[in-house]
């Protein structure tokens, strides 16, 4: 069995990672700006990128449900195996929940999402200021949870690769 993820999984992984890497700091930066055309533009770009992540993670989950990831090394300690599964499962959940709460919040605050200014998405809930606040807090909280897990995920991969000298980065398409 191959020790690498298949090409579609690799492409989706890095596309999603790259878009989150843009959407996250953009979200932090834009929400502190005073109201201006720039702020409105950045909010739109943030929402378009976020919805793209939602679409891509949907595809990634379809891939995952129809494929087995490459096996982990036999000698990897049991607890690390369990931790790896748990973190990967949570990452899928959060990468779904973060854009979903963003979409829900925008609906509740009364701002529809029109993907790339072209495709109007349905509002998921009625306009409701209080609900909008709650969903905004949820979006923020889940984002920081996601950040913590991503750091853990990256540190673990780097540790396996460099410290334990296992070809871990190759699993996700890096190097030969």
């Amino acid at each position, binding site marked *: 069995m191959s020790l690498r993820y298949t090409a579609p999984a690799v492409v989706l992984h890095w596309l999603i990672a790259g878009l989150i890497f843009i959407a996250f700091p953009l979200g932090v930066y834009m929400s502190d700006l005073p*109201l*201006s*055309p720039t702020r*409105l*533009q950045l*909010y*739109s770009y943030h929402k378009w990128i976020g919805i793209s992540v939602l679409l891509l993670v949907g595809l990634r989950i379809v891939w995952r449900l129809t494929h087995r990831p490459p096996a982990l090394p036999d000698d990897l300690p049991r607890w690390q195996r369990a931790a790896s599964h748990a973190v990967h499962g949570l990452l899928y959940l959060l990468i779904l929940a973060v854009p979903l709460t963003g979409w829900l919040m925008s609906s509740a*605050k*009364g*701002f*529809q*999402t*029109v993907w790339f*200014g*072209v495709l109007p998405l349905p509002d998921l809930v009625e306009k409701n*200021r209080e609900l909008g606040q709650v969903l905004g807090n949820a979006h923020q909280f889940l984002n920081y949870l996601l950040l913590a897990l991503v750091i853990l995920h990256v540190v673990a991969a780097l540790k396996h690769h460099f410290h334990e000298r296992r070809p871990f980065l190759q699993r996700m398409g890096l190097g030969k």
Partner: protein
Amino acid sequence: MMLKSLTLLAALTLAPAAHAIEYRSVVPAQSRIGFEFEQMGVKIPGHFRRFTAQMAFDPAKPQSAQATLEIDLASIDAGSPEADEESAGKLWFNRTAFPKARFVSSQVRALGNNRFELRGTLMLKGKARPMVIPVSFVPGKTTAFFDGSFVLKRLDFGIGEGMWADVETVANEVTVKFRIAATGK
């Protein structure tokens, strides 16, 4: 309430010996002045909560109809608290200097089928611009409705100056949609 009873009083004292129904008393609770604009391609609905209107409309003599409308700009719902606050500023309504919008009719023309063309002047932020507004008259037992919608260009009135003049972010066109309820004598 106060205003309502005042207009009612005015209607009662001013109404000529009733021949046909003349609509003179606006019912604020059943009236609505809304608008919609586009921001980054997203439609944002809003409305004004407070306005006063005087009118006289006799369906038998539409050409002599009259209407005056005054909108309290502080009563805006522009879609979000941030936008409400922003709209008061100098670049938008400049509300300390110009707290109200005012429409005064000059001419009403019947188009048939209970449809009318209302001409008049809209005064907003110190600028007066002529307007042509299509209105449908919806008769009722005691209350009749005057419905209409038209598009105005915010930049004609200097609404959204400076950095906000860029119509790619906030569109120039604002669709105004209204329903004025009135009772007659």
